[in-house]
């Protein structure tokens, strides 16, 4: 059937081409080269960003050796002499991401399974656009909500000295990555062929067993991609964590403490940094670290996806 369609497409193209003649072919050449240039541009921009990060960030290691930079626990950029140790930021990013993932992944996948497998069409058609709308909220608005509503709540529920903590930031980030996780994993679940479900029911499986043992494993590659996208958002989010995470410079031993993740450290310091100064270089080095971290997450995700694909090909 596909072959037939392709033939008819080719036929239509031929008709169009002969109808429009040379002008059309020229136009197509133009569009083709335009798209090619657009593709090239993204690569150039990406390379440019990497080169800039390395060029501005690496010189800090001549002043502060890498082990002191990565494992140092003191960050006093405006003192004389300044010290740059990013361990507190690194651990803070880790905590915030763990909290966000722990909350958003189970809820997100459950919600996606409900929407794709259980909910009637009408419910799905109303809920899904609403969830996707949630993804469009500006992060500063989420930060404001976290500051005004969530932080007093977290403070009283967990009996903390202050509601400005990694926990509050993590919960807020979970809300922000939920739409991505739900939307992408729902698409993945919907893409599972109906034959799988029919076969499962034919074997006497219940709806729950079908979802848990058939649909979710079959869609696992898509769900993994969804989770990784969510984690990526949590690691890279800046405004919300700057506003609600509290910004303390101690290495946080629990998520309930105030902390300053890497993105917040860059945002709160960069305005103060004179171009080319030590603090400027240190902040770029944090940016470089962040870039390597997200690259690592993406590579792992890629590996998982590849393995998953191979498994299903067998």
């Amino acid at each position, binding site marked *: 059937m596909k072959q037939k369609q392709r033939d008819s497409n080719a036929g239509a193209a031929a008709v169009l081409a002969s109808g429009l003649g040379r002008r059309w072919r020229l136009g197509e050449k133009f569009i083709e080269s335009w798209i090619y240039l657009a593709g090239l541009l993204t690569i150039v921009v990406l390379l440019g960003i990497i080169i800039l990060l390395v060029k501005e960030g690496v010189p800090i290691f001549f002043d502060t050796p890498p082990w002191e930079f990565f494992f140092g626990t003191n960050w006093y950029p405006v003192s004389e002499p300044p010290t740059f140790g990013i361990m507190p930021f690194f651990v803070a990013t880790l905590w915030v991401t763990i909290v966000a993932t722990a909350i958003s992944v189970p809820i997100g996948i459950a919600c996606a399974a409900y929407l794709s497998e259980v909910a009637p069409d009408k419910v799905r058609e109303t809920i899904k656009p609403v969830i996707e709308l949630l993804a469009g909220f500006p992060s500063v608005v989420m930060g404001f909500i976290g500051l005004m509503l969530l932080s*007093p709540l977290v*403070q009283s529920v967990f009996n903390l*000295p*202050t509601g*400005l903590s990694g926990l509050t930031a993590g919960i807020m980030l979970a809300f922000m990555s939920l739409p991505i996780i739900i939307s992408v994993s729902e698409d993945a679940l919907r893409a599972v062929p109906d034959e799988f479900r029919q076969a499962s029911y034919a074997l006497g499986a219940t709806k729950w067993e079908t979802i848990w043992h058939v649909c979710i494993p079959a869609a696992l590659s898509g769900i993994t991609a969804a989770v990784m996208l969510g984690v990526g958002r949590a690691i890279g989010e800046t405004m919300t964590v700057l506003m609600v995470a509290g*910004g303390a*410079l101690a*290495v946080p031993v629990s998520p309930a403490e105030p902390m300053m993740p890497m993105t917040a450290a860059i945002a709160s310091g960069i*305005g*103060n940094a004179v171009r080319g100064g030590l603090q400027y270089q240190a902040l770029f080095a944090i940016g470089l670290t962040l870039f390597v971290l997200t690259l690592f997450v993406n590579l792992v995700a890629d590996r998982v996806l590849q393995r998953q694909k191979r498994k299903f090909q067998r």
Partner: protein
Amino acid sequence: MHIRKLKIWFIIPLLVLLAATAFIGSCGDSSTTTTTPANGTELSGSFGITGSNTVTPLTTVWAEEFMNMHPKVSIAVSGPGSGAGIAALINSTTDICQASRAIKPTEIEQANAVGVEPFEIQVATDALSVIVHPSNPVSELTIAQLSAIYTNQITNWKEVGGNDKPIVAIARDTNSGTHVFFKEHVVQMLGLTTEDKSLEYGNKILQLPSTEEGVSEVAKNPNAIFYPGLGYVTDDVKPLAIKKTANDAGVLPSAATALDGTYPVARPLLYYTNRAPTGVIKEFIDYCLSDEGQAKVTEVGYVPLK
């Protein structure tokens, strides 16, 4: 075929629009378009002021009044912090830098290296207030106690005569001139016999990106303590009386106590320009220093020069 043609007609204006926004965007960045008024004509031009979060409310009022008087003048005010403002002055991305601390010698060196000569003008005075939640029974602290709180040596309110509650000490982030001023004058106790230059903020201190956020956290949280400029003190928070040493009397922050020098943590609020100001910028600063301008200082909650 019809649809293709339609699309092209749709794409072309879109591209034009994109190019236009890019152009306008790149224009909007340059805040340094200043025109000197010719004699006898109306004052016009636009310039930017950035820097201290503390001075921002005052500058905003001045800028609004000045723009009302001279409708052809436009002034953009922003307040990321004194350090950010001085960095902007050095990088030539602002015309006036507002600061709540004096420029450091290293910053002057950096400025001179790129051909910028910072010119200092004091525009007002501020009494740096220390505030707590209204329900907090503590009403006065010595500078040594504040220093101990902000270096994490005192972590419970009962150690300074309050309830048995943890202290949540809030500071501004390193962009802020208030952060640096408070560190030098309170944490390191500048000018006292106990002065210690090696003291730093403790690492359990919360560093917040704006003064408003700190004040709103203190208004909500009975454990919190924070140090905003006098202009940010509202009825939702309680300012503390500050004692220079344990033997001195506590002094509450106010215009009067800052002017007569009894309040221990008063400081100048400054403007920095690249060389002495000229043209419309000079007119603006002259207005700020005039009696009319200084009257606004009291309205905003800071302390006028005279």
